[in-house]
């Protein structure tokens, strides 16, 4: 028997497939992973600490930079928590706009995931197709709030800008366009033999493990747990819409792909209904005092971001600034399962499994 040695391989923080600045210390035996340890913190900016010196409106742009692929849901987490603590009424038009932008952002985020995931396993083209369609969403956002990535769109009590004339119709057109595009994606990717080979039966975990690790979002649903905060703890006006929560059966990477693709379809369903029921006229800002003084108390709200349960915990001492602010970032929690999943896998599966978790480093490090 030849004497073999384990090799320590440092993946990242500068590596094409770690989706930012994640570093993995991987111990490999030949091409088999013996041990993997994620090292995080390269993008840590101390958002939670900074927030203690900012008033509530000033925190909103900071949340844009957490999950930068889905800034609208981050905006919503902080304003929703604040509103709950203050007991504010939100005008209907603002609620509709919020739901529309959040669902559009969910689609955009899943498109980026799909594109980069395929890029991770070696297919170049889907990435560009996904970005072509995401561009349409970014253009819609640009028209609405003047920004493409960091929107700073929501405010405590409503939204900053009303939809410009004709904007809602454009959303409606996009929904129809996107429905057609889904067929193209399925034709291009879903049946691809190599894609199936690369993802079927890889990175499996069961529902108990998923729950123990505190996974949420598609990472949890893929094991068959039908848990979506939009359905299970309805917030905003989500009860008014009819949509399904797609779940997987086997919990492998292929299921994750199908699950996320189906989530796009469900988001399109919500958008279609929201566009139909969109109220004529009305205000986009509720009655809010000039200086936001949040009554003393504590609150935790969880919302369904594209990556899972995005929680916001505010402790207020009755000032215009939070005494303590804590975000439950789904990417951070979902990442914790990575070492367990990687053990015993081939090094080529590393990027596939890491990509399947769908992390955003801005959110992991916060």
């Amino acid at each position, binding site marked *: 028997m030849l004497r073999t040695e384990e*090799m320590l*391989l*440092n993946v990242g923080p500068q*590596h*094409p*497939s770690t989706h930012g600045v994640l570093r993995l210390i991987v111990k490999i035996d030949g*091409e088999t992973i013996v041990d993997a340890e994620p090292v995080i913190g390269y993008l840590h900016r101390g958002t939670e600490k900074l927030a203690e010196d900012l008033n509530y409106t000033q925190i909103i742009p900071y949340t844009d930079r957490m999950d930068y692929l889905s800034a609208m849901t981050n905006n919503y987490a902080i304003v929703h928590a604040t509103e709950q603590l203050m007991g504010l009424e939100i005008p209907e038009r603002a609620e509709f706009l919020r739901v529309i932008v959040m669902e559009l952002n969910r689609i955009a985020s899943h498109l980026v995931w799909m594109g980069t995931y*395929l*890029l*991770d*396993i*070696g*297919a*170049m*083209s889907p990435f*560009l*197709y996904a970005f*072509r369609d995401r561009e349409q969403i970014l253009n819609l956002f640009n028209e609405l709030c003047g920004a493409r990535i960091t929107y700073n769109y929501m405010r405590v009590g409503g939204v900053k800008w009303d939809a410009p004339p004709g904007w809602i119709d454009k959303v409606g057109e996009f929904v129809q366009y996107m429905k057609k595009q889904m067929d193209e994606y399925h034709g291009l990717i879903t049946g*691809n033999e*190599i*894609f199936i*080979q*690369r993802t079927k039966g890889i990175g499996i975990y069961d529902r108990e493990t998923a729950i123990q690790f505190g996974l949420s979002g598609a990472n949890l649903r893929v094991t068959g747990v039908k848990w979506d905060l939009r359905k299970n703890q309805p917030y905003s006006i989500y009860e008014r819409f009819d949509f399904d929560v797609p779940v997987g059966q086997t919990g492998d990477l292929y299921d994750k792909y199908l699950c996320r693709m189906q989530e796009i379809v469900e988001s399109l369903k919500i958008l279609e209904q929201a566009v139909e029921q969109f109220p004529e006229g009305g205000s986009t800002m509720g009655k809010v005092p000039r200086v936001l003084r949040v009554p003393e108390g504590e609150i935790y709200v969880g919302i369904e971001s594209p990556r899972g349960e995005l929680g916001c915990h505010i402790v207020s001492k009755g000032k215009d600034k939070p005494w303590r602010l804590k975000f439950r970032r789904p990417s951070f929690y979902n990442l914790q399962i990575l070492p367990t999943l990687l053990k015993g896998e*081939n*090094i*080529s*599966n*590393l*990027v596939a499994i890491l990509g399947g978790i769908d992390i955003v480093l801005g959110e992991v490090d916060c």
Partner: protein
Amino acid sequence: MNLMMVVGPVLLLFIVLGFVTYAILFERKVIGWIQNRIGPNRVGPWGLLQTVADVFKLLIKEDIIPAKADESLFRLAPVIAFVPAFAVLAVIPFTEKIQFADFAVGLLYYMAISSITIIGILVGGWASNNKYALLGGMRSAAQMISYEIPLVMSVVGIIMSVGSLNLHEIVEAQQKVWFIFPQFVGFAVFLIASISELNRTPFDLPEAESELVAGYHVEYTGFRFAFFMLAEYVYVFAMASLTTVLYLGGWNAPFGLTFIPPIVWFILKFSLIVFFLFWVRATMPRIRVDQLMQFAWKVLLPLALANIFITAVFKEIPVIGKFY
């Protein structure tokens, strides 16, 4: 020694370099079109000077040899990888007259010489003293050895039909029927194995960008890196030529369209293969390393062996036999 012996190879060198220059541009353009992009269009009209600019950039780059690298091997590796790429071109018959070395075992020569490149890649990966480069080099060696076997086995059918390893005679034998039809299984195996030999998507594991960053040439910069790239594209040229010669009837005109000169036919068929390679690259994800090995040994090799058997059987059947 006549003048042609000296001028010819130099001419071919320039033709091949010209091909490489524009194959890279063409590849980027084709992939650009497939991906809803424009492709390079800034340098020169229609981006025609893009590759020239790229090569110039590589030439003026600092030549870095990592401190812990094995310096002599590090310098040697690109040369080992590159020289065979050109050497194999000698036996390719482009037309009836344009061929540099017409000898009896041309096909064997091609297969043997092209394997030497693996050593260059392995040496490059080893000498870089980089873990990613080492993994890339190892993968590359495993992959190229595995795929060499089905590649050689798949052409045995042709050798049996023609009764010769001479590439010129193989083309002559295809005047009526191209070997792509009777040897279709062999052709499929050959095409897949050759894509793998070229380290191109979906078999580009040795340089798998998303996993190994760049594989065996991760530490190479400037001119040495250019040599690796050049070797890769010269192999595209050589492999597309060989496929044309073996399966698409070389310079033979189809449907009796002999008024078009043979060299044009060769270039047309050759371009088709090159385009196919680029097309596949824009379409396919990358296969995993263990699946790659399984595919070579469990699918391609049995298919190639079956093809030999079928060829042998059909050769003995009276009516069909004349096509084999």
